[in-house]
């Protein structure tokens, strides 16, 4: 995925206040989540970054291969609490 596609809301140091904006833990500023990342970007792990994830043809959907049942999942599901996450 190209660097330009990363948004603030994909950054580990972005604390989402709501669906639009959040606080940058580095600067403490309120910023818009959909704006493009700054040079301090640190990846917030989501399903789409996981080695067990396969994207589906349907937009915003995918499969979790970490589970033998291969349940569906979605790319933007945050995985900081998922023990099966594979970088």
């Amino acid at each position, binding site marked *: 995925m190209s660097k330009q596609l990363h948004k603030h809301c994909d950054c580990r140091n972005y604390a*989402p*206040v*709501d*669906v*639009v904006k959040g606080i940058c833990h580095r600067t403490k500023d*309120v910023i818009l989540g959909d704006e493009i990342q700054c040079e301090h970007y640190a990846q917030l792990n989501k399903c789409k970054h996981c080695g067990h994830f396969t994207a589906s043809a349907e937009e915003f959907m995918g499969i979790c291969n970490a*589970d033998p049942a291969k*349940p*569906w999942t979605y790319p933007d599901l945050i995985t900081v*609490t998922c023990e099966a996450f594979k970088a």
Partner: protein
Amino acid sequence: MGKKLSEVLEQSGLSMNFEAGGAAPEGVVEREVAQQPCPRAAKLRELYYNTLSSATSEFPYWYTRFHKALDGELPIMRRALALKQAFAHLTPMIYPGELIVMGRAHYYRGSYPMPWLSEGYYMAKEDELHKAAMATGGASADELSKFGTGGGNVTQNFGTIVSLAGKFGMRQEEVPATLRIAREWVNKSADDVCRKYEKMVPEYPIKESIMRNVVCIMDSGFTLPQGREVINYFYPLQYGFDGIIAICEKRKGEVAGRAGGDGLIGMNRLYNYEAIKLVVEGVQSWIENYAKEARRLEEFEQEPVQKQEYKEIAERLEWITHNPPRNFREAIQLCWTTHLAVLNEDVASGMSPGRMGQILFPYFQQDKERGDINDQEVLEWLQLQRIKFTCIDVFGSAGVVGGVLSGNTFNNLCLGGLQRNGQPAANDLEKLIIEAGQRCVTTQPTLSVMYDEKLPEEFLLKAIECNKTGTGYPAWMNNRNAMDFMLRQYGREGMTVEESRAWSVGGCLESSPGSWFELELNGRKYNIPGGSGQPTSVGVHFIGLPKILELVLFDGVDQRTGERVFPPHGRKLESYAELWAQFQAYFRMAVDCLATTNNIQHDIWRKQNMSVFTSMLKSRWIETGRLIHEMGYKYNATYNVETCGTVTLVNSLVALKKVVYDDREATLEEMKDAVRNNFGFKTAEEVKSYSLADQEKRDESGTYDRIHFLVLSAPKYGNDDHYADSVMQQWEEWFCPMCSEFESLYGLPMYPCQISVSTHAPMGAATVATPDGRLSGTTFGDGSMSAYAGTDRNGPYALFNSATVWDHTMSQNSQMNMKVHPTAIHGLEGSKKLLELTRAYMRKGGFHIQYNIVDSKVLRAAQQEQEKYRDLVVRVAGFTQYWCEIGKPIQDEVVARTEYEGM
């Protein structure tokens, strides 16, 4: 434009003056008491003001994924394991400056749908939502910030944000997952399963017609199945989560395979203890994840003070994950975490913290004795607690969250009352709680004083001072009334006088039973109160009383929709007695079909969605092993019959009695014709105002002027007028006992609940003109004991006489809202007057009174320039809400309320 009703009345010599007891000053008068929050709270509150209600699909995803994977497991284990995984996978989010941390979801004001209760909304809107999610958007920062300053409601799609239920925003990339989750619950959700069995009730067609025509406003079992009750924090405070798990393990060993003399439920105990253990483990993982996040931020943070705060947050969380709290800060964090866990387990509004000042007092007292904390530090923490509570959102349908709740979540914190031994329970921490409420004005938690003659004057005046900030809180509840009601309703379940003192308010003003628990802290013992009753305001939800009267007058046919609701009665209604008898018959019919169908809803809920974590907090689970669905709570007779529009009904009955039956100034047919034709006026929807005075004439012929004048001139409730008040008495003395003829799914009798919340707006919108002269679509009178706006002309004490012609202890509550101009209660003398006024109502036997201390001109200005009044709060009906987050009908109704200019 036609003439306004207020102008028509002026010409007829019948002024509709909404000022009583004098005239308001010409200029705008601000509230006398205005304080500021501490800098930390001010910053976090400002963040709240600019936060949108935001929804995620994270919790529903993990819950659904594991629930599905566990097909074949016992229902309770399936639910417990799904809950455990959902809690364990929540993303932790901590914001700079916070000391109390954790939230429902990873947004500041986050929430999520629970489609296992009801997925119908998503299925109905699937196509629309899917299209919105797939549309690409590029909203500008200007558009977004504009949205952010207009209150937190996301009422429409914008940019990459999709609006759900007219209130919650969801990021477009999550919408397809939300829809997919909803699809997985089709024919499995409580809503869908309920429908199947509800239809087997013979009177189901009447119930459906009642709901379609808004005679009743909401179903009970799959909308807000829990809440309007009081949480009990005792078990985590006393044992800690590791201690609770240890108790479960021990009890499992004792009960496994043993029925314990109970052939029906005895064997369930093993599964119940295991379920509690699993959910508590999930909650522990959730707290641990927050602790890890705090550690990560501690490492990342450069600024020394913030770095230290993250460290202390981590230490507190690491401790309370496993252990009972040792101090005030740990205790307040643990109570907050426990509160959130309850809210994350099920859809609930009005999960009240109860008597928090008495629960936290042992920690406060011992910390102060040790010199570990001072009052200023406690005040800061209490202000931060207010902001956390205000950030709670309940995710529900537009009709429920908007129409019934006005977006409020009803976390009621009660003060005062009595201790177990009958001594006054007010303490120094409670005074700080009031002070925090004055300094940091927020909607949550709302405060209520459990008024008792034994409470110290100083404490009561402190509460009055808070009223004068214009917060709308504290509300005043009559402690002795509530105790009497407790004994009346819960005596059959073993309630004693001592235990009746442990009551508290759940939700806005639903009195709820409690128990005393012995907390031990550092070798000292304290009796703390905690909730021990099932949800209230469940069973039969709001029935619009004026709507029932409309159906009586028109032989069972709704005049707005033309649809038949009740079977024809065929009566000519030739006497008032006949009219009253038919009203009783239709009302009884409505209660019966709503009780049976809602019993089925709750029965399905308890079989599929029983609460585990909340049951662990409240039930006698250690001794009995029973959970909520097995009547495990100490008090289970909590189901009720709710009404709306009491005073509009009473005034309408009075007008019919006076004009048609006693004085014979008009025939019933003439009255019906006038009602049908809205007394020659336009509808509220056409006028775009929901206040009676603003309504405009359509018909200038004057056909209905005479009859309208007659009904408006008829005696009105609220003036100490026996003619009107006897009708109120007749209604209450019939209604209160009749509720006990209906039983809940637990086989226990119901009781009356008489609050309006916000239902008087949508139910008024669904009701044509009423015989009291109210016009089509305008709101009903608010509360149940408030006078209808502009009709109380003899002062507050006359209103109190009218309101207390019946015994309020027969009812769970009654509701009196009063608007007072700030100048009427200026200074210490004014405070004493307001306290005396309150005391007078309590002594006469009134249950509840609450005040809006505000100049109505401020409210009118705020209607015109909403964006300038982001922090303006008003008291609606049992709750304080931000003006900008209230719908226009309720705004109009609050503006129209009689404003008392003098006491």
